[in-house]
């Protein structure tokens, strides 16, 4: 109740104060034009398909690559040390590199090598760059999940005769992945927006389409249309996250850590 009242008060204050600003009429015209919005929306909407395709494919691949990286980094076998070291360097280096650089490297660098049988398709290289650039972040989320499973769970599994691989597969990972669903989907929301970076390589996505309209009309409202469309995809993902967590808690009564 109190929350609703205070929220309403803030909204009303903003709605009353902002239009009083001297520059409001021109801002309204440039950013919130009704006509420009209605004109841009169908065109921008038509271009969002590329974004959706890119982030869905990238997300599916990232789940596999980042889980693999996390499992390697969480391994303890001395035999795997070289692999563990290589993967650790990859995670630290790539996290420090701006994503746009990775994108240019993949999108312009690799095709420039003119390798036999290697595609020049920009969408392909955009997805590859997103996978390469996002895997380190998402793998750290998985790694935190794996580390959060208490040693006693491993001991219980090993004492039943399960191998270290079976322990990981049937005891550690199922619990770890459930725990990290919220931060994982958080990274995926960021990825959905970063799918707009593909425009730098050439393909016309929703953001690029709105940019094209803006440059011909000198009105920024198409950006608003693009934003709303991106929000339309991230909000359901957030709701899905909440629903998954709620279902999980109902099933086991509580998500209590043991």
């Amino acid at each position, binding site marked *: 109740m109190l929350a609703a009242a205070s929220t309403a008060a803030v909204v009303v204050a903003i709605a009353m104060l902002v239009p009083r600003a001297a520059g409001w009429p021109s801002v309204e015209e440039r950013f919130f034009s009704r006509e420009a919005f209605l004109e841009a929306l169908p065109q921008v909407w038509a271009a969002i398909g590329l974004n959706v395709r890119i982030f869905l494919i990238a997300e599916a691949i990232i789940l596999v690559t980042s889980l693999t990286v996390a499992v390697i980094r969480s391994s303890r076998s001395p035999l795997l040390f070289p692999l563990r070291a290589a993967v650790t360097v990859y995670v630290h280096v790539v996290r420090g590199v701006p994503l746009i650089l990775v994108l240019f490297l993949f999108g312009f660098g690799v095709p420039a090598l003119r390798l036999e049988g290697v595609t020049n398709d920009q969408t392909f290289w955009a997805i590859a760059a997103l996978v390469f650039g996002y895997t380190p972040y998402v793998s750290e989320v998985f790694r935190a999940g794996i580390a959060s499973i208490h040693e006693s769970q491993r001991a219980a599994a*090993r004492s*039943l005769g*399960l191998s270290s691989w079976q322990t990981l597969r*049937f005891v550690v990972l199922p619990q770890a992945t459930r725990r990290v669903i919220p931060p994982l989907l958080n990274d995926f929301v960021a990825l959905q927006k970063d799918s707009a970076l593909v425009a730098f390589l050439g393909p016309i996505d929703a953001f690029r389409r709105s940019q094209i309209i803006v440059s011909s009309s000198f009105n920024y409202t198409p950006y608003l249309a693009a934003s709303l469309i991106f929000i339309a995809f991230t909000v359901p993902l957030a709701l899905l996250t909440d629903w998954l967590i709620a279902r999980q808690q109902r099933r086991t009564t509580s998500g209590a850590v043991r």
Partner: protein
Amino acid sequence: MTPMSPASGPKLVLEGVHKAFGELAVLTGVDLAVTEHQVVSLIGASGSGKSTLLRCVNLLEAIDDGRILLDGDEISEPGRPADPVRRRIGIVFQSFNLFPHLSVLDNVTLAPHRVLGRPRREARAAALELLGRFGLADKAGDYPDRLSGGQQQRVAIVRALAMDPELMLLDEITSALDPELVGEVLAIVRELKDQGMTMLLATHEMAFAREISDVVVFLDEGRVVEQGPPSRLFADPSEERTRRFLARIVEGGRLG
């Protein structure tokens, strides 16, 4: 259960077992033998090495020196695969350690199905039968969080039994339970003894140790100070340290 043939050696033997965690020496030369169908209780103060000893037997901890023999076979040999040994030895922990993401039934069938390769249907039938025998049939579909501590510990015992172990290790299995739940868990241990299960247990329940054990072993500072049948060890300990330990327990009201 068939009676033990007089020719067969002990089920489990520990010879001069040493274990240290860094600077901290936990086991400093333990010698111990458990004969088939025997129940042997380890008593001693917290930190005397009881739990570590059990974890070493199950190869959850590697020993630094000495030997552990199961049916005369040295299982503690460095580099020897641990999984086949662990399959033969069941362990139940103080904190239950059930798998919270699996139902009671799946907790019990995981290892028989995945480790012994039993068909799922067969493993389920066997698990339901075992759960039924210990009054848990109606809990098969529940998740561990819904169960009381006593029920959880009974499920943990059933989970270990589902692997048909030759030896059971019980690590202070009632220490994390509310007093009114201790009885139901101890009743299961009694039943296992009646069926001839070979058991090595660490416990603080002196009355129970006295009742159920064939041999009671008093550990202090990582070493066996004294062992013998409970009637003698509790009534007339020959070592001064045992006497002092038991006197403290009596003062604490733990010896019924």
